[in-house]
C-alpha cells in the first residue's frame, strides 16, 4: 500500500500549483456566466423554452470537458517527467516504493487535485444554476458528477501516462499538447481521412456507419456519450441529445464507457510499462 504515501505527498505538492488555481478561477467565472445565461435566457442559449437542471447539465458539459482536459494537462504533464528531469524522483525512489506504486500514487494524487478543483467549480456553477432555476434535482446532478469524475480520472491517466514515458518535460509537454490537438481539436478530420482513403481516395455520398465509433474516440466525445447513457431522458430533451441516428450494436451511448475504458487501459499499460523499465 505504499502508493498511499506517494499519493498523499503528491496531492500536497500539486494542490499548490498556481496555474491550477488560475484555471479554476476562469472555470468558476465561466460556469457562473453559463449557468446564469442558461437560467435567464433558455430559449436564446439553450434552444428550449423550458429550462431544467438536466438541460443545464448538458449545456455546461462542453465547458466542463474543456476545463477537465486543459486542467489535467496543466496539473499532470510534469507528474513524472518533471520529477525525473529535476531529480526529485531520486528522493522518492530511494524509499521503498516500486515504480508501479509511484505511478499509481501519482494517478491518485493528481486525480484528487483535479477532483477538488472540479468540485469547487461545479458546486459554484451548478449550485447557482439550481438556485436560479428554483429547482434542485439531486439525481441528475449526482450522475453528472459521477460521469465527470470518471472523465477526469481518464484524462489524468492519459496525461500522467504520457508524462511517464519520458524524462524530459519538454517532450511531455509536446506529448500532452499533441494529444489534445489531435484528439480534441483535429479529430473530426481524421475519420474523414480514413473514409476518404477507404473509399478509394474519394468521399462517398453517405458516410458509412462505422465512422461513428471512430468519431467517438476522443475522451471528450466519450464523455458526452456517457452523459447520454446516464441521463437518457434529459439527453433526448436537450439539444443535440440524440445519438447516432441509426441502429447498430455500437451505436449506443454505452459506447462512451467502452471508449473511456479503452483510454484507461491503454494509458495504464503504456505509462507503467515505459516507467517501470526506464533508466532514470
Amino acid at each position, binding site marked *: 500500500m505504499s502508493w498511499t504515501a506517494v499519493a498523499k505527498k503528491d496531492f500536497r505538492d500539486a494542490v499548490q500549483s498556481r496555474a491550477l488555481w488560475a484555471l479554476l478561477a476562469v472555470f468558476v467565472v465561466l460556469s457562473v456566466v453559463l449557468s446564469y445565461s442558461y437560467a435567464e435566457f433558455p430559449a436564446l442559449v439553450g434552444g428550449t423554452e423550458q429550462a431544467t437542471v438536466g438541460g443545464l447539465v448538458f449545456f455546461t458539459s462542453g465547458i466542463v470537458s474543456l476545463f477537465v482536459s486543459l486542467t489535467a494537462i496543466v496539473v499532470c504533464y510534469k507528474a513524472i517527467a518533471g520529477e525525473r528531469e529535476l531529480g526529485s524522483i*531520486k528522493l522518492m525512489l*530511494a524509499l*521503498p516504493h516500486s515504480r508501479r506504486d509511484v505511478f499509481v500514487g501519482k494517478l491518485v494524487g493528481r486525480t484528487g487535485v483535479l477532483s477538488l478543483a472540479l468540485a469547487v467549480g461545479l458546486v459554484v456553477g451548478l449550485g447557482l444554476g439550481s438556485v436560479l432555476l428554483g429547482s434542485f434535482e439531486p439525481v441528475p446532478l449526482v450522475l453528472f458528477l459521477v460521469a465527470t469524475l470518471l472523465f477526469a480520472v481518464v484524462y489524468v491517466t492519459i496525461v500522467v501516462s504520457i508524462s511517464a514515458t519520458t524524462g524530459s518535460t519538454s517532450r511531455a509537454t509536446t506529448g500532452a499538447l499533441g494529444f489534445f490537438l489531435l484528439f480534441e481539436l483535429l479529430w473530426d478530420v481524421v475519420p474523414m481521412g480514413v473514409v476518404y482513403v477507404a473509399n478509394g481516395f474519394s468521399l462517398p455520398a453517405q458516410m458509412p456507419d462505422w465512422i461513428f465509433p471512430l468519431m467517438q474516440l476522443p475522451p471528450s466525445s466519450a464523455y458526452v456519450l456517457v452523459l447520454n447513457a446516464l441521463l437518457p431522458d434529459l439527453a433526448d430533451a436537450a439539444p443535440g441529445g440524440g445519438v447516432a441516428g441509426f441502429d447498430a450494436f455500437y451505436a449506443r451511448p454505452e459506447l462512451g464507457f467502452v471508449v473511456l475504458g479503452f483510454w484507461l487501459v491503454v494509458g495504464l499499460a503504456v505509462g507503467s510499462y515505459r516507467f517501470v523499465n526506464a533508466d532514470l
Partner: protein
Amino acid sequence: MAAIELDGLTKHYGDVVAVDGLDLVVEEGEIFGFLGPNGAGKSTTIDVLLDFVRPTGGSATVLGHDAQRESMAVRRRIGVLPDAYHVYDRLTGRQHMEFVVDSKEVDADIEAILERVRVLEAADRKAGGYSKGMRQRLVLAMALVGDPDLLILDEPSTGLDPNGARQMREIIQEENDRGTTVFFSSHIMEQVEAICDRVAIINRGRLVAVDSIEGLRDSTETTTTLTVTVSGADDDVVAAVRSREDVTSASLSGDQFVVTLGTDGSKFGVLQAIDAAGATVEDFSLEESSLEDLFVEYTTPGQEVEPGEPQAQETGPTPADSPGADR
C-alpha cells in the same frame, strides 16, 4: 554477509561505458569510501544499487538482496543521500520527513532527527527556500529515518561549508558507531581519508585500487622528493648518493640535484652524503607525496598506473557522472 557486493558490474549507455566489470565487496560495519574523479562511474554504480538504472552485465547485491530483483527489500533497509537530487520546492522540511516516515512505515522522531542535522528551526518553511547546505542536511535527515542498516551517500559534502562538512562527518561516524555500514562517494581524497576504514578508487568505470588508508599509504611508498641546489657536484657525487639504499633516484642538471627517497628515507643522510662526496649544499627544498597525489596518479587520464597492467587508453568522452541528470 557483505553489505554491498558487486560482481562484474557493467553499465553501457549506448557506446559509452560508464561502469566496466566492477568487482567490489563492502563489509558490514565499515565506513567505505568510493573515490573517483567526476565521470568515473561512481553515481552510475550507486544508481544500480538503488535500481535507478539496470546493469548491462554483472550483478549487485545489497544486504544480501539482489539490487534489481529485490530492490524493495533493499530500499526498506537503507538510507540514501542521492546525487543531483532536487527537493520538493512546495513542501516543507517537515512534510518531506513525513513522506519518508509514511513511505518506510516506521515510527521516527522527526523533530529529533531535524535537530540533529540542524534544520529544525526551518522545519515548517518550504524547502524551495532552503540554501543548498540546508537541503543537503534535510536529505541527510531523510536518509537517517528508520535507523537504516546501510547508508549510501553520494557526494555528501556537496554544498556544505567546512563546518557543515565536519558535522556531516560526525554524523557519519555516530551512525557507524551504532553499527550502520556507510558507503559514500567523493571526488575529494581528503574527505575520505578522515573517516574511512577502506577506500576504493575507480576511474573510467574501472576499479584501480581497494585498500585501507594505511594500506594505500604503505603500498605507494609515500615518496619524498628532495631538490638540492649544489655547487661543485659531479658524477661521483651523483653515484655516491645513488648508492644509498633509501634513495630511489637521483639526477643532476646544472646545479639542481633532484633526489627521491623511499618511505623511511633520511633527508639529512642524503645532504650529508652530498657534502661528504665533496659538493656544497647551497639550499634545498622538500616535497612529500600525499594520498591526494596518489589519487591524482591513479586517475589521471592516459597515465600508466601499474607497470605491466596496461590501462584502457580511451580518450572518448567520459560518461556523465549522473546520467539521470541530463536525460
